C-alpha cells in the first residue's frame, strides 16, 4: 500500500515528528511504500540544515535524510510555509526539496492513505 505522510509540527518541540518517523519506519518494515512526506506549518523546520542538537540526542533532521535516502522517499517542504519561517535553499538540509502545496494534494490523490502528524 502507498502511504503518504504530512507533518505539521517542527522538531523537538512536539512529539509529532518522532511519531511520524516511527510510523514511517514501521510501514516500510511491513512492506508498504512511503512515496512522499510533505512538511507544512512549522513542520518545515524538519528541513533546516542549521539544526544542531546535543550529541546525546537524536538528530531529527539527519534521521529523515537517512531514511529518505535508503527508501527513496520524496521529502517536500511547502514553499510558502518555508519562506515565512526562514527555510530557504541556502539552509535546506540534504534529502529535502522545496515545492508547492500542489505536491500535498497530489500525494493525497496518488497514495492509498494520507496520514497526518501534528499538534
Amino acid at each position, binding site marked *: 500500500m502507498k502511504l503518504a505522510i504530512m507533518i505539521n509540527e517542527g522538531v523537538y518541540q512536539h512529539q509529532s515528528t518522532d511519531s511520524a518517523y516511527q510510523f514511517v519506519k514501521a510501514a516500510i518494515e511491513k512492506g508498504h511504500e512511503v512515496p512522499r512526506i510533505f512538511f507544512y506549518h512549522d513542520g518545515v523546520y524538519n528541513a533546516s540544515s542549521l539544526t544542531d542538537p546535543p550529541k546525546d540526542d537524536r538528530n531529527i533532521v539527519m534521521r529523515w535524510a537517512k531514511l529518505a535516502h535508503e527508501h527513496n522517499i520524496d521529502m517536500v517542504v511547502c514553499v510558502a510555509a518555508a519562506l515565512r519561517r526562514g527555510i530557504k535553499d541556502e539552509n535546506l538540509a540534504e534529502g529535502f526539496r522545496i*515545492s508547492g502545496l500542489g505536491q500535498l494534494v497530489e500525494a493525497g*490523490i*496518488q497514495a492509498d492513505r*494520507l496520514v497526518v502528524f501534528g499538534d
Partner: protein
Amino acid sequence: MGEEMTESTGGIDFEDEDASGVIKKFMFVNRKAPYGTIYALESLEVVLISAAFDQDVSLIFMDDGVYQIVKGQHTKAIDVKNFSPTYRALEGYDIEKLYVEKESLDQRGLTEDDLLVDVQVMSSAEIAKIMAEQDVVISF
C-alpha cells in the same frame, strides 16, 4: 491572500499522468480559531490549491473552527491580515460544500446568522456519515 496563492501553486504538476482524471473526496476539517495560531490561514491555502486539481472538496467547521467564519472580523489593530473574506470567494473556486457542526455553534452561542458565508448546518451524526465517505481527511 493573492500573493501567497501564486507562490504556492508553483509546485503543481499539471502534466502528471497519474494525477489527472482521478477524483478523490478531500475533506478539510477546520477546528481551530483564526489569528491565535496560523493553522486556519494555512489550511485555507491548502483548500484553494486543492481546487486547482478538480477534486471533490468539502470543508467542515467545528469546535473553535466555527470562529473562522464568524461575521465582523476586523484585524487592523493587531496588524494581521483579515482572511475571512476569502471564505466567501471559495464559491468561485467551485468549493461549495461548506458544513458546520450544529453542536459547535450551540456550545458557542452562535447561529447560522452569525456566519459570513452560506453553509449547511449539520449534526455530529450527519458529519460522521460524510467523514466516513472521504478518501483524504486533513484536520487543522
